[in-house]
């Protein structure tokens, strides 16, 4: 049964990573109705920024746990630097146009950011490995797991709950929910919809950057990171239902477990499995598991 | 006189709401039938059942002898039922002439690839219809830019490309300025004069237009037909005056 435990734990770890990545994407779609391809780029930016900030913290001989603070600051920096400029300087011009057109705009943004990251950080990989050892290791059964992975699970849960709480239990959040439901109605009730958009987009970028920053120690931060993240986050969000946080959580768990099963029992199917689940959901329940918008025309 | 449209014992219910009940109608060639009744009385339900968009719970609908009750909308359209829409359903990005050509292309035979869409024969047919509706001078304009009255006329012209056996007009003069209404109905009716045998059913709220242009009036109330007669006679009936035109107060 150790194998089963490993499988489940691996699945859970991967699911947390996926959820962190997908949360921002589904939020942005829910509010702005934009399926943001550049979301993967924001993730990558978070990871790169974390690499820089953590490296800087290390060179200043700060305590090891300060690297966590550095990561958080990196995410904040990315959100502050990128979100307002992108939303106000670019996306705003295309609101109200065809949803696929907006996808293309974010695709163009993705292309631009790919190279910008390369220009700033170069093409060589960064390894932010020191923080990975911060939480030691956890022994379960016969296997030893990295504590950091579990900490990430905790972070995923916290992010999800915080987002949910912010939307459903705060006044500002209720306003955002109103805009999600109908921007036109909300606007006619006096809500500053454009400010909500900026806020929501900023939150989306921040969440993507947080995901990138805190998972940087687990990957090699290099060009191309964003590319894989795009499809994975899409898969999770589609499965769960565009715009749904619970959906993103369930989707992440499903995909995480599916991948874990594949890795442990049929390794050659690993890549295939994730996209296959996405395709299957799209075929049988294209709205996703938690969605009300109509996907099929006829 | 062979009936073009026949409805026998048609009924339709939506849960507790009776949308149609005991509908018996026979429409022959050349008739101009006005369908009147207040909102929710059953006129649109009736039209939608003829076009196949709704299926009756009971009864039968026949087109020129063929039972179309259970047929799919596209099949019914292929048999010769055409309709226009209250809010004109057009192709806004295309020109007027292209809208007509699309309509013609949709009715074309299976050989969808053998002739270009803008084949001169098709263009001639399209232009001829546009002439009838006095839309010819708009032919190259983009439909999205056209005023409401022109759009309504185009909507009807497109329905006619099918050379239908039965034409259904859903509120042809609604959303048109009061002073334009009569002119528009004149244009429509004179355009239809070229097809004197095709029966036309039109949903209409303006009784003056009904009196002027209909050869027959069917009045609906609560899903039932309360009058089916020549316009003067139908409009004089107490029930019609009570439940449709509002001349008599209801209890």
């Amino acid at each position, binding site marked *: 049964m150790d194998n089963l435990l490993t499988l489940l734990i691996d699945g859970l770890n991967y699911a947390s990573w996926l959820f962190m990545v997908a949360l921002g994407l589904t939020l942005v779609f829910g509010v702005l109705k934009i399926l943001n391809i550049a979301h993967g780029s924001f993730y990558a930016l978070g990871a790169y920024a974390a690499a820089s900030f953590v490296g800087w913290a290390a060179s200043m001989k700060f305590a090891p746990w300060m690297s966590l603070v550095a990561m958080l600051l990196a995410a904040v920096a990315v959100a502050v630097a990128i979100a307002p400029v992108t939303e106000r300087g670019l996306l705003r011009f295309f609101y109200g146009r065809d949803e696929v057109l907006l996808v293309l705009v974010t695709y163009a943004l993705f292309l*631009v950011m790919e*190279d910008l990251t390369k220009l700033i950080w170069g093409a060589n990989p960064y390894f932010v490995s020191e923080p990975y050892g911060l939480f030691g290791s956890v022994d379960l059964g016969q296997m030893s797991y990295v504590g950091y992975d579990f900490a990430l699970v905790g972070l995923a849960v916290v992010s999800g709950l915080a987002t949910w709480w912010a939307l459903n239990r705060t006044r500002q959040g209720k306003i955002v929910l109103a805009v999600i439901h109908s921007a036109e109605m909300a606007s006619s009730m006096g809500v500053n919809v454009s400010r909500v958009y900026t806020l929501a987009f900023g939150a989306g970028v921040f969440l993507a950057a947080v995901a990138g920053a805190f998972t940087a120690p687990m990957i090699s931060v290099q060009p191309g990171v964003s590319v894989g993240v795009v499809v994975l986050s899409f898969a999770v969000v589609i499965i769960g239902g565009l715009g749904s946080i619970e959906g993103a959580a369930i989707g992440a768990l499903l995909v995480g477990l599916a991948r874990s099963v594949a890795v442990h029992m049929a390794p050659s199917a690993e890549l295939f499995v994730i996209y296959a689940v996405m395709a299957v959901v799209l075929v049988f329940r294209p709205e996703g598991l938690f969605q009300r918008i109509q996907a099929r025309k006829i | 006189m062979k009936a073009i449209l026949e409805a026998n014992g048609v009924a339709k219910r939506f849960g507790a709401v009776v949308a149609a009940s005991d509908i018996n109608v026979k429409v022959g060639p050349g008739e101009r039938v006005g369908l009147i009744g207040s909102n929710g009385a059953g006129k649109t339900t009736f039209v939608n059942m003829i076009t196949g968009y709704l299926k009756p719970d009971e009864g039968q609908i026949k087109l020129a002898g063929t039972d179309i009750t259970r047929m799919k909308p596209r099949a019914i359209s292929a048999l010769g039922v055409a309709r226009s829409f209250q809010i004109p359903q057009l192709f806004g990005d295309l020109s007027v002439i*292209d*809208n007509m050509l*699309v309509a013609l*292309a949709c009715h074309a035979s299976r050989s969808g690839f053998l002739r270009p869409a803008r084949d001169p024969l098709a263009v001639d047919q399209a232009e001829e219809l546009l002439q009838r509706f006095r839309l010819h001078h708009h032919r190259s304009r983009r439909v999205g830019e056209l005023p409401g009255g022109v759009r309504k006329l185009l909507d009807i012209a497109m329905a006619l490309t099918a050379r239908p056996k039965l034409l259904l007009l859903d509120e042809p003069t609604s959303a048109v300025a009061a002073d334009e209404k009569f002119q528009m109905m004149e244009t429509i009716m004179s355009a239809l004069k070229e097809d004197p045998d095709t029966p036309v059913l039109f949903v209409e709220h303006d009784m003056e237009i009904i009196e002027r242009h209909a050869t027959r009036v069917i009045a609906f109330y609560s899903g039932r037909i309360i009058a089916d007669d020549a316009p003067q006679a139908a409009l004089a009936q107490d029930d019609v005056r009570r439940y449709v035109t509002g001349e008599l107060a209801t209890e």
Partner: protein
Amino acid sequence: MNTTINANASRQAPAFLSPRVLAYAVGTFALLAVAGFHAPTWLTYLITIAAGNALVSIGIVGLMRGGVVSFGQGMFFAAGGYGAVLLFTRFGWTDALVLSIAGGGVALLLALPFAPLLARYRGIFFATLTLALSMVTYGVLMKVPELGGSDGFSIGRPTLLGERLDGASGSYRLYLLTIAFALGMGLLARVNFDSPNGLVTLAARDNELRVEYLGTSVRRLMGVNFLLAAFCGGVGGALVVISLGHVEPGFSYWTTSGEFVFVAILAGYRSIPAVFVASVMLEIVRSFSSAYFPNTWQLALGLFLLLIIRFLPRGIGSLWNREERK
């Protein structure tokens, strides 16, 4: 019913392709053939690849006219490429012309089971389902050893009418073959777009409901468009692979599909030559950037795409097709 307003009503319907269009096509071929003979090999090679890629984008344009954007045409590009390679290595089919058409056929077969499904989707869901399917294909291609795994396959030089296409003269003949296919399929696309199905496709993009009420099945239309796009993608894939000499799973990755979409957007759906021009532009930017500014070609592409979307939303084709109401 009063018939003739126009006394010419009884004249013969013209053929789809006017003599003028055919003359342009033949003239362009002659021009490109002569130019290619004198041009440096890197240029003819670039145009060969661009022409093959453009075929995939023509398929996307066909779908865009119906109002949907496919983010997964890489799947059919790959199908054509892998099809050509497998037929070459396993069955000994070496003729380039046959391989190209066969590549289209393989892609068509792959598309067949999915066409009825995809015909029911629009917007984001069409885009993401096509993306998902192409990524599944990628996953399969990466992991199945019989299909070459992550390394893919190589293909030797094909033959044409019996002769092996070796060396510089062989490359030149491949160039001629590719542009001949490009022109030929471009003409066929023109025929399709001018046909009743083509016009009704444009209408469906605008108002599907009315098309249905006018008696045409939009689902069937979209399905047919999808199959045609797949065929184009397959032919393009086969042609590119034959010139490239190699095929690998990346052909089906979403970023490859994205580039085909980029070209289609850049070109717009009003002019077929624009698609080839746009594809050549992409190849030129790609080649020069890799050589001189390796870290900026995607930046250039992205900015370019944004400019086009913002200022020329109907693509570069609208620059010379402004009057036409297609």
